[in-house]
């Protein structure tokens, strides 16, 4: 199998189109930066196959993202497009690119810290506030308006904010 990097060099036009597909719940964030595009297969004039991996197995945005990929590639002139979602490569929050972390911040969400595979309560309880930058914050609940978010409160600027959860 070709690596993602090689694939990006081989088929820049496909990846460019995929970069333009945004997470419907976080509009500044591209699905490529989110890290859910695990590979692209393309045989000459044949079919483009895009392989995705879900952030959360119960994510309701996944079906929409699959459709957005198909629509965008059609728009870019690829007639036969297949999207396959599988757990072959398990997504974790370290797969979000640096650009992706910036996009999350831009959307007002605290981006997930990089982790070594272990996520403890301590990591979540001093999440830096995306509004004022203070670490004097507290986690209200590890669950939020979507599966990938937790809810926090900043004691410095007295604002409630959401964070994109670190996932191992």
């Amino acid at each position, binding site marked *: 199998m070709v690596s993602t990097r090689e694939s990006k060099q081989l088929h820049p036009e496909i990846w460019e189109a995929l970069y333009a597909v945004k997470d419907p719940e976080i509009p500044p964030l591209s699905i490529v930066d989110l890290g859910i595009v695990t590979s692209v297969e393309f045989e000459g004039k044949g079919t483009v196959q895009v392989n995705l991996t*879900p952030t*959360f*197995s*119960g*994510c*309701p945005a996944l079906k929409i993202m699959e459709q957005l990929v198909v629509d965008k590639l059609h728009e870019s002139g690829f007639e036969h497009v297949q999207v396959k979602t*599988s*757990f*072959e490569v*398990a*997504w*974790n929050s370290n797969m979000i690119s640096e650009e992706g972390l910036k996009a999350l911040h831009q959307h007002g969400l605290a981006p997930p810290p990089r982790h070594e595979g272990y*996520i403890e*309560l301590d990591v979540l309880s001093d999440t830096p506030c995306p509004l004022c930058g203070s670490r004097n914050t507290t986690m*209200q*609940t*590890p*669950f*939020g*308006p979507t*599966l990938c978010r937790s*809810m926090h409160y900043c004691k410095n600027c007295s604002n409630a904010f959401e964070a994109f*959860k670190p*996932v*191992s």
Partner: protein
Amino acid sequence: MEYTEKHVLAVKELLYKMADDQLILGHRNSEWTGLGPILEEDIAFSSMAQDKIGQAHALYQILHELGEGEPDTVAFMRNAEQFHSCHLVEIPIGEYDFSLIRHFLFDKAEQIRFELLGNSSFEPLAQVARKFRGEIKYHVMHADSWVKLLGKGNEESHGRMQEALNQAFPMALGIFEEGPYEEALQEAAIFEGEKHLRALWLEAIKPVLQAAHLAIPGDVDDAGAFGGRYGKHTEYLQPLLDEMTEVFRIDPAAEW
């Protein structure tokens, strides 16, 4: 090793009971949507419901790839006696204390189950188990902190948590009811088995309960906990299935 027919049956049985537990408890959790004692708990139980239904779907999908029906068909077209869920997940949500203790006991077992299955020789299951590990972590974190908070809260909260534990603990032992293929699962390194899981689970819940000043009940009468894995269910399952499929049954061929 090459799987025989028996190993495939064993994998299917394991997948069915895991998926059915997730589906049923997922629906039970969703009954807290709009009714949680505080907004954050409403959201927590709703989110956990969504995770569990998503996990159930992934497991039914593997079953489908092994030749069983489509996930939606399997989830919504069977009667109670065709389900493999354990009794613990079928019981109505009751008061918040009961739902919380059930969530604590069940999700701890699931966390360890996923941990073990991450190394399963059956690769499709190992893949989803590794995925689910990251998700269940948040469920367990949630359960542990609330069990400790309320166990040590005041006299009323402590009393209610202990009573809920006394009620739920015997039922929880039904999670580990052995299926007909335990040996086949172990022999092919698919899964270490329910007995092993139960022992690990007991060790895992003890320190949390201790920190919460709660005691595992002695003299446990677990007679009512078993049978779920063989299609014998509580009186609560069929009405729940009827409710879950009420809209679907109006027009099973409808496009959504």
